């Protein structure tokens, strides 16, 4: 791609992982996650092997470990529940550092934490090596309903436009001496939100008009056709297949 700005999740690069067609990568990540979820939680070493596989992908894609770990923080609010489980779950109790914890709770927490982290890490790698636009092309290629792809691509296009409109409305509010303090001002904020909704709706109508004027008939024309060669599919399949081998070994051993 040219000199365009990209999303903050994306790491510019020309690694073999970056060059893979997007639909191959999406499929690979999805299969990898399914395999991870299907792994018995007691096979501790298997999760270590998965992490090593992802580390290898990150190294190939030249994504720095620091970047990956920072992006993983997004997971924190979601795993809060997992941390609670050992304290609230029923069943046999074990003593760890002077605390009485439920054994099944500990396993449950480990299960969520390990599988969740691996899934998020795989997604972060996907986002780091694929432009948002390409992700959408990939999804389109994978036969996601076109309407959903269109909605998502308009979201990308108009997100900034609407944020900017919101910022201008805030500036206009504050220029007339308004600052939101407490419940009494919520009404004003709600009206702003309503006005923003109407403006966006009207913009939607104008955009539709512009689309009709250029020959839109309900489906987006194909502009970039992404295709993958057999070699690219094989390359992308390396991750989920390696994970599958680990999973099957784990299942037979436990």
């Amino acid at each position, binding site marked *: 791609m040219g000199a365009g700005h990209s999303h903050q999740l994306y790491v510019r690069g020309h690694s073999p992982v970056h060059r893979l067609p997007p639909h191959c990568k999406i499929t690979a990540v999805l299969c990898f996650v399914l395999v991870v979820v299907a792994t018995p939680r007691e096979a501790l070493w298997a999760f270590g092997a998965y992490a090593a596989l992802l580390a290898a992908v990150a190294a190939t894609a030249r994504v720095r470990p620091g970047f990956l770990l920072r992006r993983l923080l997004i997971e924190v609010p979601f795993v809060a529940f997992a941390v609670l489980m050992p304290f609230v779950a029923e069943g046999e109790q074990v003593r760890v550092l002077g605390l009485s914890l439920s054994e099944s709770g500990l396993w449950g927490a480990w299960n969520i934490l390990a599988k969740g982290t691996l899934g998020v890490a795989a997604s972060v790698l996907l986002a780091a090596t694929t432009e948002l636009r390409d992700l959408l092309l990939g999804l389109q290629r994978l036969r996601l309903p076109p309407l959903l792809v269109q909605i998502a691509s308009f979201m990308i*296009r108009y997100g900034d436009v609407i944020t900017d409109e919101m910022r201008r409305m805030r500036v206009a509010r504050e220029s007339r001496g308004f600052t939101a303090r407490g419940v009494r001002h919520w009404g004003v904020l709600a009206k702003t939100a309503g006005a923003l909704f109407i403006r966006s709706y009207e*913009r939607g109508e104008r955009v539709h008009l512009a*689309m009709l004027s250029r020959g839109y008939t309900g489906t987006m024309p194909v502009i970039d056709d992404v295709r993958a060669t057999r070699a690219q599919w094989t390359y992308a399949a390396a991750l989920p297949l390696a994970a599958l081998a680990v999973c099957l070994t784990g299942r037979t051993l436990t």
Partner: protein
Amino acid sequence: MTPPSLEVSGLAFAYPDGHQALFGVDLTVGRGERVALLGPNGAGKTTLVLHLNGILGGGVGSVRVAGLPVDRKHLAEIRRRVGIVFQDPDDQLFMPTVREDVAFGPAAAGLRGAELRARVAEALSRVGMEAFADRPPHHLSFGQRRRVAVATVLAMEPEILVLDEPSSNLDPASRRELADILRSLDVTVLMVTHDLPYALELCPRAVVLSDGVITADGTTQELLCDEELMRAHRLELPFGFDPRSVVVPGR
């Protein structure tokens, strides 16, 4: 003999709420002409523009583009022939990148592959925006977005280019750049504008639309010098601007 680019005859239209916007408009624009459409707010300019490519219709009268009547049967071809550049480029540029946006029209018409790429490259080079093909539109300046908007319709190789307030919100340099581009194009232009000096600069001929009818049609300089006509239709020149003193550049 080639038919005129645009032939509007007896066009009348009322909105579903009963508000009548056009009362019999007659307008012919020859091939290669550049015509300014002037008129006060609420005169029906936008309504007329939306008739040209069949977005609005169902009233009385007829519109022909290069001989082809605007009706349901020919809608796809009509929309290829009439390139409308809307006032807000953020409405016009709806695709994630400039290149895809310019490709949208021709791709909708069935163009693919190398032919499509060539068409996009050509349209972008005509407005001097080749270097920005892979940028998302919202990272461009307003003037650049307006130019890309022009390219999006040029890519369809239209018979007639319809511009809605092309100079609005442009700084003087962008305004001049756009004028240079428009002058360099070999295409029929209908320009809806309040910017009278801009109309004088670019369009040898002007028509005045007022209360839903064409009330004046002549050379732009003549119209702008007719003080009575100007006053009657709420058209005002900017302070200090004297249309008599301007030497109008030729085509």
